[in-house]
């Protein structure tokens, strides 16, 4: 599904160069659920942005679904994001001036679906996240957990197959977080490939594999599950 070899990303400002990723190599199989952990500034979001085609990289190679993405132009990247990739963000990133249904509708319109098809999909994913009755609500009228469910619904509406989540529960209390996590697990069980950044080791433990980043490099690959090394390891 995802294959990165020696990917580097350097942020240049007038005064400093930051090596956000250094020769990072990683393979993720289709249908896998990977948790990405690491200290702040270690490059997790950078990795996710590159994996999700939100940003380009400076060196190395990246194949998504067997396709080399280095040569894609802006339009192709937009189309791939739209059709193959779902994003879930820490701060939900709903569009505040659109109601719930219109928010979920956004990627579907860019996809060019007809109105009927869009409506069918919006209704379906809202059902999946359990917010069928809130279509006309504005994001500000929902709780954080509900907003994140809407964001997940929006990510799912296009049937992406590849889900990228950057601390999806970072802004939620633990019981709400558990609900959202349950949803993500279910999406995974339905066959999606998931890469999730988290600071919460308990949540990371629910993934099939934990990838640990430090200073822009993969330092430790670990099978997920109870009793893993990380579980007792140093604070992340």
């Amino acid at each position, binding site marked *: 599904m995802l294959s990165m070899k020696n990917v580097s990303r350097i942020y240049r400002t007038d005064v400093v160069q930051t090596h956000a990723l250094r020769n990072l190599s990683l393979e993720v199989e289709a249908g896998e659920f990977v948790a990405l952990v690491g200290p702040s500034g270690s490059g997790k979001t950078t990795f996710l*942005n590159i994996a999700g085609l939100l940003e380009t990289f400076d060196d190395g190679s990246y194949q998504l679904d067997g396709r080399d993405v280095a040569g894609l132009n802006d339009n192709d990247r937009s189309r791939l994001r*739209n059709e193959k990739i779902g994003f879930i963000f820490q701060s939900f990133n709903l569009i505040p001036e*659109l109601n719930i249904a*219109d928010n979920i*509708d956004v990627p579907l*319109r*860019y996809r060019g679906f007809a109105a009927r098809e869009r409506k069918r999909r919006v209704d379906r994913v809202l059902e999946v996240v359990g917010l069928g009755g809130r279509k006309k609500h504005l994001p500000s009228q929902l709780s954080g957990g509900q907003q994140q469910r809407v964001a997940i619904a929006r990510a799912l509406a296009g049937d992406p197959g590849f889900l990228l989540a950057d601390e999806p529960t970072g802004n939620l209390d633990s019981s709400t977080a558990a609900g959202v996590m349950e949803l993500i697990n279910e999406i995974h069980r339905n066959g999606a490939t998931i890469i999730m950044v988290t600071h919460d080791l308990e949540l990371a433990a629910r993934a099939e594999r934990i990838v640990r980043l430090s200073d822009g490099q993969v330092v430790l690959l670990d099978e997920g599950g109870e009793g893993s090394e990380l579980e007792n390891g140093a604070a992340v």
Partner: protein
Amino acid sequence: MEIGPILRAMTRNKIGAILIALQIAFTMTVVVNAYFMIEERMRLMERPSGVVEDQLFHISTRGFTPDFNGKVSVQDDLALLRQTPGIVDAVAINAIPLSGGGWSMSLQVEPGDGEQGHGVAIYMVDDHGLDTLGVELIAGRDFTPADVRERGPATSDWPDKAIISEATVKALWADANPLEVVGRTAYINDDEPVTIIGVVEKLQAPWNGWTTVEQSMLVPDKLIWTGVRYMVRTEPGRRDEMMPIVEELLARSNNQRIVRAPESMAETRARSYALDSGLAKILGVIMAMLVSITSLGIVGLASFSVRRRTKQIGIRRALGAKKRDILRYFLVENFMITTLGVVLGAVMTVGFNVWLVQALNFPKIDWLYVPIGMLALWLIGIIAVLGPARRATAVPPAVATRTV
């Protein structure tokens, strides 16, 4: 097209949009009406006077010695002018078209002081009048030397022949053909008969603001006053060159008088319409100012809306929006605001004009100006929003994950 969501999103931030729409409507109202007024002025200013303006200038003289002989002086001057190379013809005349000063009399079809009269401007000329002015005779004949009498300061009666403008024919005899009125009699001063011996196509009265500015009459009176004005027709292209020559010539030929500076018909015309062209310029400046302020308003609102939605743009890009989708979003949003503005503007434009017509007796606006004005402001709206919208497309998708 995502008209529905754009509209719903806009209704949640409507103040700015409504203000800009109102500004567009107001601008359209003023600009369209001002443009119409300018056009009206231009149309008035472009009316031909009927004389060959670019070959004509006029110059006046006044004798100041007690024994100054007007009759001899005019005779000598005209002989001198008419034989000067570069001059086609010259005539002593009592009034100058467009000059704002002249005589008018009332002409009527039947004699008697109860009959309806028609105001006409009077031009007193000799048998060189038509040739000098360059007016076109379309019926009848020109004056001959035998027709011409002398008119001194004491003369109070009128010659028995006249040439009138076609508009005067229409005023006197409604739909009569110029050819058939030749030989007819009209009455001046209530009961002095005047035979119409010719009709000229066009000769404006000296007052351009007069509603009957096209009504005029030439009479075969040769002026023999001590103060007299000559109209001089030069060969084409030599007017400016001849003006100082003639001034010099007249001054030298007789030192018992003063010769005033000559004025070309172009100057007379410019002076005549100075107020109109000044008003047109002021209106033009107001139009330009309003249009630029409104364009800046649109640019400002769009820039603000782009900046406020930087994060949202990033999110949309992350969700698959191509650059052109972002561009289109802002164009469509602006198009909707502008449309509201121009529709409102169309109503206000017509309403304002109706008020101008009723309260200030302005001419009624040509309805075509309204769609043209709408179109123009639509275009201005699109051009104004292009910059901010292009800046919006430059927002990178990573903004979705990078900003809070």
